[in-house]
C-alpha cells in the first residue's frame, strides 16, 4: 500500500511539473483547423515572443472547458460559427473583454454588447448558379423553394452549422411555419440527398448534376486558387442572394476569452492582435474571408465579386433560433 501511495504521489508531482506553464504562454481551444490559424498565430509569436499552444477539435471543446472548470488552462476559444460563440456565453464559460482596440476594430453589430464574444471574419452563404444553364441571375434564398427549380439544387447536410444558421435566419424572417413551408419546398427541389461539403456542390454543378448550389464564399475563393478545382469554380457564377430586399445571410468566425483564463493580459493582447490590420489581412488573403476590420480590404479576388448588401439581422437572433431550426430539419426530414 505504501508503494502505491508513493507511486501516486510521484505521478502527481510528475504530472504537475508537466502542467506548469510559464506565464508567457497562451492556450487556445480551437474549433477551426490549425492550418487556418497557424499563419496568424505564428506571426504573433514571432512579434511578441509569447508562445501559443493549441488544441483543435470540431466537437466537444465547450464540454471539455465546462468540465475543467476553474482549473482549465485554456485562455481563448476560437469558433467558426455564431452559435458556438453563443453556446459558450450561455454556459457561462467566457468573460467580458473591454478593450478599446478591439472595440475600434470590430463594428458593434459583430460583437457582443458586453464583449463576451467578438467576430473575426464574416462569410456569406452564397448561391452558385451554373454559367451554362442558368447564367448570372438574381436569386433569393426564398427562390430555392420555387417549384421551377425542381430537381436542380444541391446542398450539403442540413445539420451542418452553416445550413442551420441559414435556416435560423429564415425562421427569424418568416416565422416557424413560414420557414417550414420554405424548407419543404427546398427539399422537394433537391437534385440529390444532402451530402458532401460546399466544394462538392460546386463540382456537382460543373458535372451537370444540378444548376444551383449553396456554399460559403471563401470555399469558392479557395477553389479558384486551386489548379485542380478551378475548372469547377469557373463553371459557376457566385451570386449574392436577396440583394433586392434584406441582403445576403452572413455568419461569423469569432473568439472569446475563457472565464478562468490564467493569462488574461497576454490573451487580450492576442485578441487585439487578431482584430488588427496584420492578422485581418492574413485572414483576408489566405482564407478568402471578409475581414471584420473595416480598415482592411478583402483580397483582390474576393473584392472582384463586387460589393454586396448583407442581412442586418443581429447575430444573436441567428443563434436564438438554432434549436428551432434543428427541429424543423428533423420534421421535414431534410437529410433523409
Amino acid at each position, binding site marked *: 500500500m505504501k508503494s502505491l501511495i508513493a507511486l501516486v504521489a510521484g*505521478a*502527481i*508531482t510528475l*504530472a*504537475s511539473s*508537466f*502542467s*506548469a506553464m510559464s506565464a508567457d504562454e497562451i*492556450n487556445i481551444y480551437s474549433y477551426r*483547423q*490549425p*492550418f487556418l490559424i497557424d499563419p496568424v498565430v505564428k506571426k504573433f509569436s514571432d512579434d511578441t515572443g509569447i508562445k501559443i*499552444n*493549441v*488544441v*483543435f*477539435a*470540431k*466537437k*466537444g*471543446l465547450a*464540454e*471539455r472547458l465546462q*468540465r*475543467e*472548470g476553474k*482549473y*482549465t*488552462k485554456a485562455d481563448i476559444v476560437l469558433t467558426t460559427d455564431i452559435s458556438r460563440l453563443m*453556446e459558450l456565453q450561455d454556459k457561462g464559460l467566457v468573460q467580458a473583454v473591454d478593450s478599446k482596440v478591439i472595440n475600434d476594430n470590430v463594428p458593434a453589430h459583430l460583437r457582443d454588447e458586453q464583449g463576451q464574444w467578438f467576430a473575426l471574419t464574416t462569410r456569406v452563404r452564397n448561391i452558385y448558379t451554373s454559367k451554362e444553364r442558368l447564367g448570372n441571375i438574381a436569386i433569393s434564398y426564398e427562390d430555392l423553394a420555387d417549384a421551377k427549380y425542381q430537381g436542380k439544387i444541391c446542398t450539403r*447536410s442540413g*445539420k451542418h452549422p452553416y445550413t*442551420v444558421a441559414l435556416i435560423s435566419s429564415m425562421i427569424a424572417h418568416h416565422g416557424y411555419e413560414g420557414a417550414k413551408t420554405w424548407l419543404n419546398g427546398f427539399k422537394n427541389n433537391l*437534385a*440529390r*440527398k*444532402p*451530402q*458532401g*461539403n460546399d*466544394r*462538392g456542390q460546386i*463540382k*456537382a454543378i*460543373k*458535372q*451537370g*448534376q444540378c444548376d444551383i448550389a449553396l456554399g460559403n464564399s471563401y470555399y469558392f475563393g479557395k477553389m479558384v486558387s486551386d489548379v485542380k478545382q478551378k475548372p*469547377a469554380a469557373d463553371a459557376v457564377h457566385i451570386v449574392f442572394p436577396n440583394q433586392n430586399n434584406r441582403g445576403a445571410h452572413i455568419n461569423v468566425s469569432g473568439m472569446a476569452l475563457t472565464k478562468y483564463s490564467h493569462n488574461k493580459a497576454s490573451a487580450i493582447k492576442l485578441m487585439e492582435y487578431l482584430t488588427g490590420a496584420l492578422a485581418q489581412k492574413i485572414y483576408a488573403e489566405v482564407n478568402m474571408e471578409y475581414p471584420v476590420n473595416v480598415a482592411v480590404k478583402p483580397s483582390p479576388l474576393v473584392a472582384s465579386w463586387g460589393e454586396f448588401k448583407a442581412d442586418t439581422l443581429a447575430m444573436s437572433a441567428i443563434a436564438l433560433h*438554432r*434549436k428551432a431550426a*434543428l*427541429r424543423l430539419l*428533423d*420534421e421535414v*426530414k431534410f*437529410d*433523409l
Partner: protein
Amino acid sequence: MYIRLNKKWPALSWLFSLLIFLPILAIVWQSFGDDQDVFGHLWRTVLPDYLINTLLVVSGVAVLSLCIGVPIAWFVAMCQFPGRAFFVWAMLLPLAMPSYVVAFVYTDLLEYAGPVQGWLRQAFGWRSAQDYWFFDVRTVSGAIVMLTLVLYPYVYLLARTAFLEQSPSLVQSARMLGSTPWQSFKRISLPLARPAIAVAVSLVAMETLADFAVVHYFAVPTLTTAVYDTWLGYGSLAAAARLSALMLAALFVLISLERLGRSKQRHYQRGSGQEKIQRYALRGIKAWSITLFCTVIFALAFAWPFITLVQMAVEYFEQSWNPQFIQYSINSLTLATIVAFVCIAIALLLTFFKRLAQSGYAAMPAKLASTGYALPGTVLAIGVLIPLSLFDHGINGIFEYFEQQGPGLILSGTLFAIVAGYVVRFAAIAIGSVDASLNKISPSIDMATLTMGVSPLKMFFKVHLPLVRKGCFVAALLVFIESMKELPAALLLRPFNYETLATYVYQFVSDEQLEHGALAAIVIVLVGLIPLIFLNRSLEK
C-alpha cells in the same frame, strides 16, 4: 471445480473493470438528466429512420464480413492455392487503413462528379444523370461495403487463428470416416471456430455502431448521427446519453443471444503444435477462383486506396510535407504501445479471473470492461472526462483546503486522459481475443497443475500465459493498430500541442481535403503494417 485465488486477484479484477466502466456509468448517469423533450421529438420525427439505417448497416457489415472473412480464413489456413503465401498476410493489410480514407477514396472515385462516371458520360455521350443509371455510393449499401472492406480482417484474423489452432487430427478423423472436405468444414472446423468468429463479428458490429466518419461521409444518418445531433445541436447531453445507452443495450442483447446459442457447447483443444496441417492442394479453376476472389478483395480494400494515397501525396507533396511528422509518429507509436500493453494486462487479469472463479458473477468484470467499444468516440471521451475531471477537482480542492497551490488538471488535461480513453474503448478487443484463446485450454490442464500443488498464480504464469501467448499477441497488435487509427478520443482529450498522425490527418479530412494529409495517412498505414507483419509471422509458426 473451485479454485481459491488469493484475494488480490479478484479485488484487482473488480477494481479495474469498474474503473473502465466508470465513463460508461457517467454516460448512463447523464441519461437520467432532463433532456428537454429532445428524445421525444426525435422519436416522433427522424429516429425510426435512423434506427432502420443503423440496423441495416450493422447487420449488413456483420454478414458481409462473415461472407468474406470466414471463407478466406479457411482457404488460407487449410488449402493450397496460387498466391496463398502472399494472401496470408496481404488479407490483413486493410486493417491498417483508416476507414475514412477508404470512404474518401471511393466516393471521390464513384460519385457523380468522380472520374468513373465522368468517363462513362464522355464515352457514351450521356449528358446528365437522367440519361443513365449508376449506383449511388452514398447510400446504406455503399456504407456497408466501405465498412466491410476495413473491418472484415477482424473476422479473417480471428477465424484463421481458430482454424490453425484446431487439432488437424479432428478433421483427418472426419475425412477418414468418409466426410467430404465441405462436410468436415461445416461440421468440424466451423463449429469449433464459432466462439472466435462470434467474438470477431461482435467486434465488427461494435466498431460499426460506433462509426461516425463513414456514415456521415456517406450521408447515411444512423443512431450515431442522432447522438451527435442531440448533443452538439440540441445541446442535450442527456438525450445523447440516453441514445448511447440504448445502443449499448441493443448490443448486449445481440451478444447474449449468440452466447445463449452455444451455451451448451464446450470445446477444448489439445493442439500440441507438433501436428502439421495437411492443406488441401487445390488445382485448376477451383484454385484460381480463390486466388481471384482474394485478389479482388485485396485490391479494393487495400491496393487501390493505398495507390490513391500515394498519388495524392506525390501531387501535393509540398502542402503535405511537414517536418514534424517524426514527432507525430513517435507520439502515435508510444501511445499505441502503452495502450496495447495496458489492454493486454487488463484482459489477462479479467479473463483469468473469469476462468478460475467459475461463478456467474466472475464473468461480470470482463463484460463490464468490454462495453466501451460500441460508444461513439466523442461521447466516450466526454464519459472519460467526467470522472477524471471530478478527480482533478477533488485533488485541487484538497490542496486549496490546506491553502496550497493545487497541481491543476493532472489527469484530465494530460496524456493520461487519452490513454484512459483508448483503454476504455479498446479493452473489448483484448478481452475478446484473450478470452477466446483461454477458453480453448481444457480445464483438465488446470486440474492437473493444481493437483501437483502449484499455486494458481504460478499456474497462470507457467501454464496459461505460455498457452495463450499467441492470443495475447494477436490482441495486442489489434489494439495497437486500432490505437494508431483512433481519432475522436485523442482529438478531444489531448493536451495542448499534442498531435498524433491521426489527429493531424483529421484536420484535412474534416475539410474534405485528404490530399493535403495524404502523406501522414500513408505513414499511419505503414506504421500499422509493421506489427501486421510480426503478427503474421507469429501465426504462421
